[in-house]
C-alpha cells in the first residue's frame, strides 16, 4: 500500500491538474441564428460569415484566455415559428454563451420571450423594427433602429433634397410596417407629405405594376422603399420598364450587392442610409473588406459587417467579464466597441447608437452620396 501511495498521489494530482486544464481548453460557444435558406438567405448567410470571420481572427491570435471560439449556426428560415424553435434549442444548450440573431424583426420578436426567460443575450445584427426596443433586457441590436434611420432619411429627402411629396412602398410585415409608420410620422415633421403607401409581400410579390401605376398617377417627388433589396430592385426595374424613373430612397435594408446584380442600370441613383460602406477608406474597414474577401471570396456588405461587429462585441464582453450568459448581458450598459459599422454602444433599451452614412448607387457601385 505504501508503495502505491506516490502513484496514487500522482494520479490525484494529475486529475486535479487535468480538470481545470480541460475546462481551460474547452471552446467558448457562440451561436448565430439567421435565415440560411429561403428568401433572406443571402443576408442570413452574410451574418453567419461575418461572425465566423470575427471568431476566426480571435482564434488566430490564440482565442480568449487560451480558449477557442466555436460558432454554431442555426437556420430560422425567416419564419417566426422556426425562430422560436431555434431559440428553444439554443437556450437549452447550456454551453451557448450568447446568440447573434435573429435577422427578420418578426423572428427576433418571436425568439425574444424565450431568450429573456432563459437569460441569454439575443444580439440582433439585422432587426431594426421599433418593437424590438421593448422586447426585453436580454434583447439588443447592433443595427440602427428604423426610427433612427427613418428620421435620418426623412430629413435627407425632404430637407436636404427638397422632395416634398413622397410615396411609400412597404413590406407587409413587422419590419416594413414599423418603418412605414416611422416615415408617416417623420416626413410631415420636416414639411413633406406622404401621398401614398402601397404594401407588398416580401419574397412573394413580383408584379409591382398595379402599385407603380397607382403611385405614378400621383406624381410623387420620390419613392421611399420600406423593404429589402430584392423588391427594391424589382420596383426600380418595373418602373423603368414603363419609362418611369423617380428618385428612389431606402434604408440599409436595400443595401446589398444583390441590389445591383438584380437591378442593373435601373437602380442607378438609388439612395439609402447605411452603416457600412466597403469603399470607406478607414483602415479598420479596409482590413475587414480584405479579410472577408480572402475568407469567403465574396464582397463584404452591410449584414456580414453587422454580424462581424455583433460577434466582436460579444467577444470583447467575454474578454472583459468572462464567458457566462449573465456577465455578457451585464456589459450592455457600459462596454463600447468600435466596429466596422461604427461605434457599438447601447442605450437602456439595448438599441445601438451610431450615425448612419448617406450612400447611393453610382456606376454600378455603392458609394458615399455627396448630396
Amino acid at each position: 500500500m505504501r508503495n502505491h501511495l506516490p502513484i496514487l498521489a500522482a494520479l490525484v494530482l494529475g486529475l486535479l491538474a487535468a480538470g481545470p486544464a480541460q475546462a481551460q481548453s474547452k471552446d467558448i460557444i457562440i451561436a448565430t441564428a439567421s435565415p440560411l435558406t429561403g428568401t433572406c438567405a443571402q443576408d442570413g448567410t452574410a451574418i453567419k460569415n461575418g461572425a465566423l470571420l470575427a471568431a476566426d481572427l480571435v482564434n488566430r491570435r490564440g482565442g480568449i484566455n487560451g480558449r477557442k471560439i466555436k460558432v454554431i449556426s442555426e437556420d430560422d428560415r425567416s419564419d417566426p415559428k422556426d425562430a422560436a424553435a431555434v431559440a428553444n434549442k439554443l437556450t437549452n444548450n447550456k454551453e451557448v454563451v450568447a446568440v447573434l440573431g435573429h435577422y427578420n424583426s418578426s423572428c427576433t420578436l418571436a425568439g425574444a420571450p424565450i431568450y429573456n426567460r432563459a437569460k441569454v443575450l439575443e444580439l440582433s445584427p439585422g432587426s431594426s423594427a421599433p418593437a424590438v426596443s421593448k422586447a426585453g433586457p436580454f434583447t439588443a441590436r447592433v443595427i440602427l433602429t428604423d426610427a433612427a434611420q427613418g428620421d435620418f432619411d426623412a430629413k435627407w429627402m425632404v430637407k436636404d433634397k427638397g422632395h416634398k411629396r413622397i410615396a411609400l412602398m412597404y413590406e407587409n410585415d413587422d419590419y416594413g410596417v414599423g418603418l412605414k409608420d416611422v416615415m408617416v410620422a417623420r416626413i410631415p415633421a420636416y414639411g413633406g407629405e406622404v401621398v401614398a403607401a402601397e404594401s407588398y409581400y416580401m419574397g412573394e410579390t413580383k408584379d409591382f405594376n398595379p402599385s407603380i401605376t397607382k403611385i405614378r398617377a400621383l406624381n410623387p417627388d420620390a419613392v421611399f422603399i420600406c423593404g429589402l433589396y430584392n423588391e427594391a430592385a424589382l420596383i426600380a426595374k418595373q418602373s423603368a420598364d414603363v419609362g418611369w424613373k423617380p428618385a428612389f430612397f431606402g434604408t440599409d435594408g436595400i443595401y446589398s450587392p444583390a441590389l445591383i446584380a438584380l437591378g442593373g442600370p435601373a437602380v442607378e441613383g438609388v439612395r439609402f442610409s447605411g452603416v457600412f460602406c466597403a469603399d470607406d477608406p478607414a483602415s479598420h474597414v479596409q482590413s475587414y473588406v480584405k479579410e472577408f474577401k480572402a475568407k469567403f471570396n465574396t464582397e463584404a456588405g452591410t449584414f456580414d459587417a453587422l454580424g462581424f461587429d455583433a460577434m466582436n462585441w460579444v467577444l470583447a464582453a467575454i474578454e472583459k467579464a468572462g464567458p457566462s450568459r449573465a456577465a455578457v448581458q451585464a456589459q450592455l450598459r457600459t462596454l463600447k466597441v468600435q466596429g466596422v459599422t461604427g461605434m457599438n454602444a447601447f442605450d437602456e433599451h439595448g438599441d445601438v447608437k451610431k450615425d448612419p452614412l448617406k450612400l447611393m448607387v453610382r456606376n454600378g457601385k455603392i458609394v458615399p452620396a455627396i448630396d
Partner: protein
Amino acid sequence: MHGLQQLAQQLINGLVIGSVYSLIALGYTMVFGILGFINFAHGDVYMIGSFIGLMLLGTGAFNFATALVGAAILTGIVGIAIEKVAYRPIRQSGKGFEDTMLVSAIGVSIFLETLALIIWGTETHPMGAVLHKVSYQVGGIYISSVQLLILGLAVGLMVVLHLFVTRTVTGAAMRATAQNMMAARLMGISVDRIVSVTFAIGSVLAAIGGLLVGAYFDAVYPLMGWTAGVKAFTAAVVGGVGSIPGAMIAGVLIGLIETLGSAYISSGFRDGFAFIILILALLFFPSGIFQVRRGEGKS
C-alpha cells in the same frame, strides 16, 4: 394621369399577368380533363421551364426567341418524363388511381423545388437584358414591349391550341380520351400517347409562360411556381376543370380582378383576391363557369 387613364393602365397590367395565368392554367385543366386529377407539380414545371430558359440564355449561344423554343422543347420532355415516372405506373395499376396520383404529384412538386434549390441556390436570378425593352405611350397610357409580347404570344398560343384540339386528329383523340378513356382505347386510340402529348403541351405552355414572366419581372427563383401555380389552379377551377376555353377566360379574369383589387381596394390583399374568387366560385358555380360533362369508364 386621369382616373380613366389609370384604370386603362391597370387593365393592361391585369390582362398581361392574367394571360400568363391562362397559359399555366391550360396545363392543369388539360391534364384534369384526361386523367381526372390535379397535377400539383405543374407550377414547378413552369419554374423549371423558366430556369432552363435562363440556363440556355446563360450559354450565350441563344437569343430570347431561340431560348424560348429550346426551353419549351426541353420542358416538354421533362413533362413527358414526369408523367412516365411518377404517374403512369400508378395509372396502369388499376382503378381509383386519381387520389394516388395526387399524392404522387405533391411528391414531384417537392422534388422539383428541392432540385432547383440545390442546382440554382435560394437567391433570385435576374434574367438580364435579354429583351430590348421599350415603353410606348398611347393617350397617356404606357405599355412596354414585353407586355405586348406576353399578350401577343399568349393569345397566339391559345388560338393555336384551340385549333389543335378542335381541328386535328390528335386533338379529336384527346377530346375522345377526355370523354371516355376506355371507349377511346376500344376505338384504337393509343391512350398512353395521348396522355404524353397532353403533358408535353401543358409543359410547353408553362415553360413559355415561365420564361415570359422571368423576362417581365426580371426575376427567376426556385419557389416561383408556388404562387403562380396556385393562381393558375384557381383559374382552372373557376373556368371549370377540364374546360380549355374556361381556363383561358378565368386566367385573364383572375389577373384583372387581382390587379384592380390591389390597385383600388388594398395592395396588401393582392394574393388574397384569387382565393376569394376560388371560394365564391366553389360556393356558387361549383363546376366552374364552363361546365364539363365527364364520362364514365376511366381506367
